[in-house]
C-alpha cells in the first residue's frame, strides 16, 4: 500500500471502481467492516501502510469485480 495510506484520490478511485459493479463489496480492516460505497467511511478508517485489510465481494459479477479492484488498489 501507498506508505502515506489511502487518501483522497486513491480512495476516490476505489469507490468509483466498486460503484461500477452490482456486487456487494465490503472492506474489512481494523476490526471494522464498511461498504465500499462510502468514501467517507473509507477515508475515516485511516488506513495506512502496514494495516491489514481484506475485501469481500459477493454478487453476480463478483469475479470480475474482485479482479478489477485488485488492479486499482494502492
Amino acid at each position, binding site marked *: 500500500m501507498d506508505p*502515506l*495510506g489511502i*487518501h*483522497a*484520490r486513491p*480512495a*476516490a478511485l476505489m*469507490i*468509483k471502481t466498486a460503484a461500477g459493479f452490482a456486487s456487494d463489496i465490503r472492506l474489512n480492516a481494523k476490526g471494522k467492516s464498511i461498504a465500499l*460505497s*462510502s*468514501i*467517507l*467511511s473509507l*477515508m*475515516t478508517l*485511516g488506513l*495506512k501502510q502496514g494495516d491489514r485489510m481484506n475485501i469481500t465481494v459477493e454478487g453476480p459479477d463478483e469475479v470480475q469485480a474482485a479482479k478489477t479492484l485488485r488492479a486499482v488498489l494502492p
Partner: protein
Amino acid sequence: MTLRCEKAQALCQKDQAAIFEAQKLMLEDQEFIDRIQESIGQDKRTAVYAVLQTSEFYADMFLGMDDELMRSKSADIRDVSSLLVRCLSQGKADKKLLAPGIVVADYLLPGDLVEMGRENLLGLVVRHGSPSSHLAVLATGMNLPMVVCPDLDIEPALEGKTLAMDGGEGLLFIEPDSSTQTLLKEKAQELIYRKQVLASTGEELCYQGRRIELLANVGSIEDIRQAIQAGCDGIGLFRTELSFLGRQELPDEDELVEYYSQCLELMPDRPLVFRTLDIGSDKQIQGLSLPQEANPALGCRGIRFCFAHTDLFKTQLRALLRAAVKGRPALMFPMITSVEEVAHIKALLREAADELKQAGLPYRDHLPLGLMIETPAAVVLARELAREVSFLSIGSNDLAQYTLAADRENEALADRFNDRHPAVMKMIALTVEAARQEGVALSLCGELARDTQALPQLLETGLTRLSVSPSRLEAVKAKIRQLCKQ
C-alpha cells in the same frame, strides 16, 4: 436535498482537478446524505444546521487521526459542506455565481440581486414580480435582462438546461433550437451596441436632426484618459498593436487581460472598440522576424497577418474575451476583403472561447463584432459583410490609399494622396448606404473625420458616427456645432 446535492455537483464537476473527484464522491456519499437527512427528519434541524453538524462530525473524525495527511482531509469535507450551505442558504452567505448563468427563482429581493452582483449573471427569471417592481428597476439599472414567468414550473430538471430569454419581449425559451438561439444572439448584440451609444455622456451633437456621435481613436490608457477628459461618446478605435511594438518580448495573455481590463474599467458605460492586431512587415515587432515584402501595404498585414500567426492572434482573442467580463467591449478586425475571412475569424473566436471554457477561466462571449472597411473589396461587399456582424467602420486612410492606388507614405505622391478625392467620398457614400440597408451601425475612424473642412461633405453622406484622436475632439465638436447652426 437531492436537488441541492445535484446543484453542488454541477458546480463541482466544472472543476476537472482530480481532487474534486473525491469531493464529489463525498457529496454523493449515502452515509453523508443519510446523516444529514436524519438530522433534518428526526432531530428537526434546519438543513444548513444539519449539513454543518454532519460536516463537523466527519471533520472531527479526520482531525482525531494521528496522521497529518489524514487530518488535512477535514478541509475537504468542510469545503464540500460549505458548497452545500451556499446552495441552501437564502440568507447572508456568498451569493456570487461561480459560472455564467441565468438565475431562476420564485421571488427575489432587490438585496439578493445586489449581493449576487453582475459577474457571471446573464439574466433573471422570477415567478413573482412585475416590470415596475424594485427588482425590475434594479435589473434595468444593471443592464440585466429579466423575465417574469408566473406559470414556470421551477423543477430540478431546469438545472443544466439551456435557457434563453428575451427581456424586451418578456419571453423565456427552454432548450431553444439553434435558429432561435442565433436570432436571440443577434438581437442581443444589437441591443448591447445601441445601449452603449445611449449611455454616452456629455452634450448631444446633431446635424440635420440626426444625432452625431463623436468617438475617440486611442492606442493607450493615457489616450483613453485624455479622451474622457475631452468628452466623447466612447472609443471608436483602440489600436491594440501599439502594446506589441517597441518591446523585446511579446506580451503574454495574462498581461494583455490586465491591460484590456484597465481600459474597460475606464469606460464602464460607453462603447470601447478593440481593433485586433494590425501589423505587417511595415510595422515590425521584436520577437517576430517578418520577411521583407516588396509591397508591405499590399502584403501580409492586418487580418492576413493574424491568420498567418494564429497562436498570437488567439492569445489576443482569449485576452479580449477574458477582459470582457469587466465591461462590454466590441471587437473589430482590420483589412477585411472577403466574407470567408469573417467566417474564419468567427471560427477562431469559437476556438478561443472553447479553450477558455476548458481552462475554466471566466470570459464573456458573443461580443459585438465589427469589420474595418478599408479596402475597395470591402466596400463592394459591404452589404454581404454587414450581414455577418454588428457594425462596420471605415478606415479612411487605407481606403484612400487603396482606392487611389497611391502609397500614403510616399512623399512624391503627397499631392495625389487626397482623402477628400471624389472617388474616396463615393466609396464612403456606398458604404453608408450598404450599412443603412442592412441596418448595422457604421463609423468612420480615419484622418478624414478630423479634417474640419471635410466634415460638411462627410455628414452629408449620412454618416452619424465619427472617431478622431482625443486631441481633435474639441475642434471637431466645435465645427459640428457651427454646422448645426447654419
